[in-house]
């Protein structure tokens, strides 16, 4: 089936974007809330304790999804930045900006829940373990990216420069990941969820975790749409104010 790419990009036209998100956002938001609650209630109340980790296993229903989101949101920002650079879609740049704060929150959640879990399990809140360290570095990248957005007044200049930072930052974030692995072998277990995860994690834990992940993804989609809508309005507001200033001068 041939895909009509022009029709596809049409959805990113700001006016059209505002039109369809206006209708889709409430649905997605409600869906996100429902699935988020189901996933966490299931995980929190209805799963047995792990025989070794006790009740701390319940932390994973937030730790694992937030950690996944922390990385995937950066990847999404990278894609959005590339689309901005190549096709100059304003919505794309603003979506990247909107996603950054969510990604930073997810990184923080992953770090804090990891620390809380690590205290009873590893006997310490913080260990310079490769994964923990990588997430700390990721947090620094998010902070830098958001700070650059805040610092530049002109929206297009800000979009260009932050996209450049996102591109270069991605390369260095990957490099840091491998450098950190090299620097310390670490005590974090391997990825606890992957596509063949049934082997790693029993079904009782696996299904609620899947629902929780879906909840986090939907929550992110809802938030990013809401925030992008806000940014589009802010951009329009900025343009109107500039025009007023010109007229009054």
């Amino acid at each position, binding site marked *: 089936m041939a895909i009509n790419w022009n029709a596809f990009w049409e959805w990113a036209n700001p006016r059209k974007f505002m039109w369809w998100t206006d209708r889709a956002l409430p649905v997605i938001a409600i869906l996100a809330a429902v699935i988020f609650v189901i996933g966490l209630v299931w995980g*929190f109340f209805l799963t047995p304790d792990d025989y070794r980790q006790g009740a701390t296993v319940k932390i994973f229903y937030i730790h694992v999804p937030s950690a996944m989101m922390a990385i995937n949101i950066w990847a999404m920002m990278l894609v959005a930045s590339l689309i901005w650079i190549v096709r100059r879609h304003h919505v794309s740049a603003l979506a990247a900006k909107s996603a950054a704060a969510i990604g930073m929150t997810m990184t*923080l959640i992953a770090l804090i829940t990891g620390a809380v879990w690590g205290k009873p399990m590893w006997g310490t809140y913080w260990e310079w373990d490769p994964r923990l360290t990588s997430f700390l570095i990721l947090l620094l990248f998010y902070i830098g990216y958001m700070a650059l957005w805040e610092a530049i007044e002109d929206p297009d200049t800000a979009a260009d420069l932050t996209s450049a930072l996102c591109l270069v930052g991605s390369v260095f974030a990957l490099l840091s990941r491998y450098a950190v692995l090299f620097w310390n072998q670490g005590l974090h277990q391997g990825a606890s969820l992957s596509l063949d995860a049934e082997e790693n994690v029993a079904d009782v834990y696996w299904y609620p975790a899947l629902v929780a992940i879906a909840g986090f993804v939907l929550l992110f989609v809802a938030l990013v749409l809401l925030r992008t809508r*806000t940014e589009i309005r802010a951009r329009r507001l900025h343009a109107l104010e500039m025009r007023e200033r010109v007229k009054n001068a």
Partner: protein
Amino acid sequence: MPDLGKYAGDVLMAYGVTFLLLAGLIWRSLARSAKVKRQLKAAEERKSHG
């Protein structure tokens, strides 16, 4: 309420911090959305009237 055993404090703290952070994020997103919406409306009105 499930019996969380000796790790009750840790588990509840993890969930509590998560909800606090997420609530903060959602609240800030909504607040900014409302503020920008209001300002834009005012600016559009100024434009069409003034």
